[in-house]
């Protein structure tokens, strides 16, 4: 299969080159390598790897000639880093594609990534850092018959590790920008969209009759007027029981999700108010329960934090059911005012709250039927709450400072899939100071001090980081995370890390040594649980 495709690719490239075309061809891509050594550390529970060092690497190549594009990705896991699933094993070219565009029609064969609307019914994407990649393999057509009208349709199978899931996924989406399509000179802009995705999988269940075709559809609307912007999407997934052999294990209820956001902004000020409601809305590439088969994306309705201790207890969408609200306010206090000072001051406020649906999510079988109330907040189980304020200020030509204070409530049982009542809710208060000082042109020192106070979970943490950078080539950093408040004295440990790196143009090399704590790491809305580790790391990233 792969051989055939590769040959076809070579042939098509050769043929293309014999055509006399004015478009010159170009080849570009990028290479990433992550190597890590694993030494045992009984104190933090880090295990040594049999291989001593583990290595992940990727090379992407894109070939372009005019309106023709082809490319591939070589992936190498020898063997995969410990925080990756060990189903990533060995080498291969799991991603290859060819695509051309002519008269508004774009044809892609092979692998592709695609998203319908916000992703509520379908998103295929990759995040190499998290080991997430559900690329499609099949055919995709995109067509724009008129300016402002965008149609796409696709069919294929969804990738899981080095194989493809059993289901065949078909999808179509239409988006119309009314102002562009009808040539309206209106101040109000309206964009509407409709998506449909369906999965086919044969029913071989000996006991129950399961739907072989499962559809999901979504409607979206975006209205923009001056500084105002409303955006909403409603999605439904038809019944999709997992195919359990017990009656109680099969839920025949439909799923649905609603997200809605209203934004207003002008120079120096912005506000975003959002809500979402999710009910039994996980959509998978096959009738299974494992997370690695998920093909839709319900954006987490909380702020994506980057400071370590703010992200120690991260939130994740409970696709089975949740109700959430979020508010963000961005404000810049003007230069020259009392609080603004010489350079102005920036404030960012964020509040989010996520709770359970009333008496759980929708359920339907012969014995039980339940549909939760549409809105219920008070009295429902809290999943996550975060209230935080960030202040950024340039103090003078040499000093810049950021301060953050936050209060978070984290339902450890729900968010980490533990038995209800084991840990309860971890309440934490966090404060952060981040100060950078420019010594002289190109030389900067940056200090981060972070403090998290909590009774639950692992108790309180402190963190300190010092970074020294010499623009444009060098950086050095040392950091220590100290779990001084752990209730078990033997776990009151330091996690020290040293990193240095060299950057030049398109190349970046980073070497590190240190201990990483076990925990949940989330990037781009996806989370994974990683084991604690101790050792050297090498990361090379290059683009051409």
């Amino acid at each position, binding site marked *: 299969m792969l051989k055939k495709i*590769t*040959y076809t690719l*070579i042939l098509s*490239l050769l043929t293309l*080159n014999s055509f006399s075309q004015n478009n010159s*061809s*170009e*080849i*570009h891509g990028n290479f990433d390598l992550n190597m890590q050594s694993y030494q045992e550390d009984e104190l933090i529970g880090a295990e040594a790897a049999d291989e001593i060092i583990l290595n992940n690497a990727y090379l992407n*190549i*894109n*070939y*372009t000639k005019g*309106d023709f594009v082809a490319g591939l990705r070589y992936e190498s896991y020898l063997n995969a880093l410990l925080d990756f699933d060990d189903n990533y094993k060995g080498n*291969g*070219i799991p991603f290859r594609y060819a695509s051309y*565009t002519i008269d508004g029609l774009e044809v892609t064969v092979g692998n592709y990534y695609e*998203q319908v609307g916000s*992703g509520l019914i379908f*998103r295929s*994407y990759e995040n190499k850092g998290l080991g997430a990649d559900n690329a499609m393999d099949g055919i995709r057509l995109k067509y724009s018959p008129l300016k402002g009208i965008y149609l796409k349709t696709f069919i294929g199978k969804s990738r899981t590790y080095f194989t493809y899931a059993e289901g065949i996924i078909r999808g179509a989406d239409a988006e119309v*920008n009314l102002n*562009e399509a009808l040539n309206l000179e209106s101040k109000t*802009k309206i*964009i509407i969209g409709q998506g449909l995705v369906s999965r086919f999988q044969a029913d071989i269940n000996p006991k129950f009759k399961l739907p072989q075709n499962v559809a999901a559809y979504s409607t979206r609307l975006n209205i*923009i007027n001056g500084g105002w*912007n409303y*955006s909403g999407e409603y999605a439904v997934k038809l019944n999709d029981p997992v195919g359990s052999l017990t009656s109680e294990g099969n839920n025949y209820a439909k799923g649905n999700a609603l997200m809605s956001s209203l*934004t207003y*902004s002008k120079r*120096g*000020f*912005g506000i*975003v108010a*959002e809500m979402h409601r999710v009910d039994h809305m996980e959509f998978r590439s096959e009738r299974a329960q494992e997370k690695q088969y998920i093909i839709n*994306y319900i954006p987490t309705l909380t702020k*994506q*934090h*980057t400071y370590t201790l703010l992200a120690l207890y991260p939130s994740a969408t409970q696709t089975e059911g949740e109700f959430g609200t979020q508010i*963000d306010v*961005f*404000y*810049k206090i003007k230069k020259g005012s009392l609080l603004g000072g010489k*350079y102005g001051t*920036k404030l960012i406020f964020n509040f989010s709250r996520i709770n359970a649906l009333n008496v759980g999510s929708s359920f339907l079988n012969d014995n039980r039927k339940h549909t939760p109330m549409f809105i219920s907040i008070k009295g429902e189980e809290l999943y996550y709450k975060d209230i935080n304020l960030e202040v950024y200020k340039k103090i003078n030509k040499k000093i810049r400072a950021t301060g953050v204070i936050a209060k978070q409530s984290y339902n450890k049982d729900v968010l980490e899939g533990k038995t209800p009542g084991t840990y309860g809710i971890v309440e934490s208060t966090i404060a952060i100071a981040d100060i*950078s000082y*420019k010594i002289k042109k*190109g*030389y*900067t020192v*940056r200090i981060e001090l972070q403090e998290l106070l909590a009774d639950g979970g692992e108790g309180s943490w402190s963190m300190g980081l010092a970074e020294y*950078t010499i*623009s*444009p080539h060098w950086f050095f950093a040392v950091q220590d995370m100290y779990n001084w408040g752990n209730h078990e004295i033997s776990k009151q440990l330091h996690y020290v890390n040293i990193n240095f790196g060299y950057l030049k*143009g*398109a190349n*970046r090399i980073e070497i590190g040594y240190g201990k990483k704590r076990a925990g949940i790491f989330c990037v781009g*809305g996806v989370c994974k649980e990683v084991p604690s580790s101790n050792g050297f790391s090498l990361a090379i*990233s290059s*683009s051409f």
Partner: protein
Amino acid sequence: MRKLFLSIITTILFSTLSIAQSRSLPSVLVKTLDGGSINITEIENNGKPIVISFWATWCKPCKKELNTIAEVYEDWQDETGVKLVAISIDNSRSMGKVAPYVNASDWDYEVYIDPNGDLKRAMGISTVPHTFLLNSKKEIIWQHKGYVDGDEDELLEQIKKIAH
């Protein structure tokens, strides 16, 4: 398997060796802040330099880079005529925060969103920030990964080299 891989690389290399290498922007649609779409090849600065900077609302060094340049952007424009195009890779979780963040920060950049990473992949980007400099023919002539304080000085030097 390995042979095939090698053969395909060689084929590609040979087939392009004869052609003078220049690097142009890939033809990819990105979203505008008012809900529309634009092909990134359509960005224009009348033959003056263009800087393309990939960022995200959740990326600290990215925001630091763009906030720092914002303080001197007017001077840069007067001096070199440069235009900065900021491309956010925020996905549907945070893309709604892009416009209010940009507005509240007083940025004068042209801002687009690449919500599912199509342009990011086409331009070979693995992490943000990642900055490109385009010459008068919109060919990429310089790029830089990451941002530390002071990197904007090197960028300005590169811009000056090609500004007329």
